[in-house]
């Protein structure tokens, strides 16, 4: 009896450990698709102008620049917004009714959206430049309860933003700012 309990405990402990994957430096099958959505080419020699216009386009979208490295053509910007969604609110109310006020499910409360831009020459002569932008967000949940157990706020979730429309909007602004047409891969 004791041995079987011990074995069960050991198995449960082993199950809790997250094995280190070996695949995080391997290209995902969908990587070229993401790259195509995140990248545009501009026929210009002026990398500084491209980077400055990228910062301006991000400012227009409400971001504030957190880090910039001119030589590497690198920019990082972020903005915080409410993450409340009416769908989640309705779902929460529905769950409260169904569970007879047993479960108050935590819902998304606040989010930080970040943008990372790298602008670099795309050919040896430096007459064409590549701009790649990546958007991701961190979402914080509010509080909740299950029976009498309180769930404190602050649970985090992180995800990449893959919606092509957001990338298209950014590049449309950038294109307008540098008076140049953006080319895809």
């Amino acid at each position, binding site marked *: 009896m004791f041995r079987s309990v011990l074995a069960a405990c050991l198995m449960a402990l082993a199950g809790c450990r*997250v094995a*280190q*994957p*070996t*695949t*995080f*430096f*391997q*290209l*995902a099958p969908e*990587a070229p698709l*993401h*790259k195509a959505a*995140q990248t545009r080419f501009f026929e210009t020699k002026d990398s500084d102008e491209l980077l400055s216009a990228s910062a301006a386009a991000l400012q227009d979208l409400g971001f504030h620049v957190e*880090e910039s*490295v001119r*030589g*590497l*053509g*690198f920019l*990082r910007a972020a903005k915080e917004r409410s993450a409340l969604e009416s769908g989640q609110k309705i779902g929460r109310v529905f769950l409260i009714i169904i569970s007879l006020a047993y479960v108050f499910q935590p819902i998304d409360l606040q989010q930080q959206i*970040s943008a*990372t831009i*790298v602008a*670099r020459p795309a050919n040896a002569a430096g007459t064409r430049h590549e701009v*790649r932008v*990546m958007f*991701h967000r961190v979402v914080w949940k509010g509080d909740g309860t299950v029976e009498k157990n309180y769930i404190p706020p602050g649970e985090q*979730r*992180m*995800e*990449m933003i893959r919606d092509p429309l957001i990338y298209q909007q950014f590049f449309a602004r950038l294109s307008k700012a540098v008076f140049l047409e953006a080319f895809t891969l």
Partner: protein
Amino acid sequence: MRLFPFVVCITFAALAGACTVPKPSANLLAPTEAQTKLRSIQSRTFELTDRLVAMRGIMGVLQDLGFVIERANEELGLVTAAKFAEPNFLDVVEITVTVRPQDGGKFLVRVNAIFNNKPVEDAEVYQNFFAALERSLFVNRG
């Protein structure tokens, strides 16, 4: 009752012993064999024209692999990036890459990755990274 002074002495001796700080061993900071092995797994030399080319290649390959670049320092040849292991968004992989010039127009690229605050020591993981970097540098050279 006769034992009382003896017990008091033993208690004080134990307390005094607990107060002494154990001395670190003389070879605390000496490199171990495992560290040397890990350093060789994490390092690779590339023949490149300048550091900027290497750094741009590294940033490009990190973006291809889905990493978000957090910091980059051109003067120090330093790039820091992180990635969330989708789809559960709970596991985080952090990576630091340094580029240092060597003799004869070569550059030493050293990578160290951390998965959920634990160092990654699997050689295959680093081989995959260097293979991707080599490909990226070759493509951009052309």
